């Protein structure tokens, strides 16, 4: 715990000054997407990403993450607003944008009947890399993601982790300025996940690449990202470095369960001097307090003095998950995305 805390500190020190030193690379201005039936998946969001950053985009299912990535990677045309990536406008100059970005999509997009090598050469050729250079690039990338031994095997024989690594390699064929990753580690086991993040980190360091990613894993976002934006209901709720966001929370979180309570004890708890806020969620009280441990003891005393028993109490230091919960009111969990089908049976992604 203490080592990861110090890591945050060192990682975030430059990021607080990033605005002054670094060049703007992704500039999103009032970007909106309204689907049929007036569903506003993304509602006039604006944000800035600077060169060389790892920018995390977090939010519950249906918040507008994938829609935003789809618009930024030119798969969807925004219904309002726009964005510039390395100076090129996504609505006016989509082709120029595509040549400068790499995209690692949520699902596998490789041709299963081709080998990993063939998939890479194919993708490189579509990005305008000349044939000889494409082959060289494919071999380099297979080496980078440690798939050289399986390079000439058909992708259908690959495990989930190998496919993900191939997807990342495909996103890198054109040495992109910005690499977009939509849930790059979703559904992978812990070991594979850490291996994937290792590649991603080394990429960033070696190539001064900017990474824009969504993830469901809060700890990963906390450890990896220089800055984070949290999106909910199509709006950006907050932007900042993990340290800044946790500081905003202003104190520890105490979760309290009381046995046999017959009335709401919120007011009683709020009277204690260290307690800042109390909310009741089901049978649990969620208390924000300055000094968690001391406050917890005081709360137990207060509850007991009224003749009730505390049946569980938990003091949490602020984590990104807590920030997330505080801002979106939702615990972070995986859900089925909302999907609908249009007249021709094509899936409309309302967002996931």
């Amino acid at each position, binding site marked *: 715990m203490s080592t990861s805390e110090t890591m945050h500190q060192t990682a975030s020190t430059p990021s607080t000054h990033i605005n002054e030193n670094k060049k703007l690379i992704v500039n999103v201005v009032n970007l909106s997407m309204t689907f049929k039936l007036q569903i506003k998946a993304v509602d006039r969001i604006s944000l800035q990403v600077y060169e060389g950053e790892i920018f995390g985009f977090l939010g519950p299912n249906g918040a507008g993450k994938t829609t935003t990535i789809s618009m930024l990677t030119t798969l*969807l045309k925004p219904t309002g607003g726009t964005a510039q990536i390395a100076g090129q406008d996504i609505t006016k100059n989509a082709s120029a944008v595509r040549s400068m970005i790499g995209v690692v999509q949520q699902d*596998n997009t490789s041709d*299963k009947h*081709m080998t990993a090598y063939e998939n890479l050469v*194919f993708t490189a050729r*579509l990005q305008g890399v000349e044939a000889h250079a494409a082959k060289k690039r494919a071999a380099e990338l297979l080496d980078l993601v440690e798939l050289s031994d399986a390079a000439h095997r058909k992708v259908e024989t690959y495990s989930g982790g190998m496919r993900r690594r191939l997807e990342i390699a495909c996103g890198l064929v054109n040495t992109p300025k910005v690499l977009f990753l939509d849930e790059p580690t979703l559904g992978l086991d812990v070991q594979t996940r850490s291996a994937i993040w290792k590649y991603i980190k080394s990429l960033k360091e070696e190539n001064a690449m900017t990474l824009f990613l969504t993830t469901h894993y809060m700890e990963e976002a906390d450890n990896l990202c220089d800055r984070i934006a949290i999106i909910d209901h199509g709006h950006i709720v907050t932007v900042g470095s993990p340290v800044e966001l946790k500081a905003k929370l202003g104190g520890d979180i105490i979760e309290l369960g009381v046995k046999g309570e017959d009335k709401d004890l919120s007011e009683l708890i709020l009277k204690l001097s260290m307690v800042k806020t109390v909310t009741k969620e089901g049978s649990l009280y969620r208390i924000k307090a300055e000094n968690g441990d001391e406050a917890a003891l005081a709360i137990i005393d207060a509850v007991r003095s009224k003749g009730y028993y505390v049946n569980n109490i938990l003091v949490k230091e602020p984590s990104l998950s807590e920030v997330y919960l505080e801002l979106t009111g939702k615990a972070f969990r995986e859900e089925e995305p909302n999907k609908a089908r249009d007249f021709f049976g094509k899936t409309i992604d309302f967002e996931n």
Partner: protein
Amino acid sequence: MLQGFGTLVERLVKDWYKSPFLFILTLIQPAIWIILYGESFPSSGISGLTSSYFSFLSVGMLSFVVLFASVYSGMAIVFDRQSGFLRKMLVTSTSRGSIIMSYVVSNLFKAVVQVSILIAVAVALGLQTSHMTALGLTSAFVAEALLAVGLSAIFTMIGIFSANPNIQLGVMNFISLPLLFASNSLFPTSAMPAWLQDVARANPLSYASDAARQTLLGASGLTSLMFDFVFLAVFAVVLSALSIILSLKFLSK
């Protein structure tokens, strides 16, 4: 504009010949059709023929083969959408027009191979060769190729909008057989009721079959050879252009 186009076509053609079963099947299929149809239909009792019915039919079958090859071009795009591969192509800087035309051109390639096999089998089975010249053969190939481009563009266009293979299959079946029977590919238009003759005159299959009969058999035509080619060229160009325009606007994941 054409960035990656060759790579796209190469992949689709490889998909075809690298799957030996599918490849052999598509090669045998035209041969089986011509043997079954050509031998089982009576040659007498059909009015308006200037050649033997077998010769008439086997040349008409060229358009038949092109139609059935083209029908499947729409399936490739639907499968690519399902597997996610379409999205991989869409985020690269290759143009949407190249992606769409790669389905059309790879299908043109398959259709030309099938037409060549069909002609060879038909000649072996007794297709009249007395009027055949190198120029005639080339012209017949051009006519069938134009038909293949136009028809593939139609079915690829449908594929832009349908994500579900069942929908694509339904549309394929809905269009393909009526298109075949309302043409002069199997029977001369003179053997049809008047209203059907009008339909056949609006059907591109009729003009491809007519052009092939005029150039291969020296048969008298439905219309002038010039008109056949103009009709087919306009058909191919307009539908290709339309499919490119639609892909720029609507081709999506």
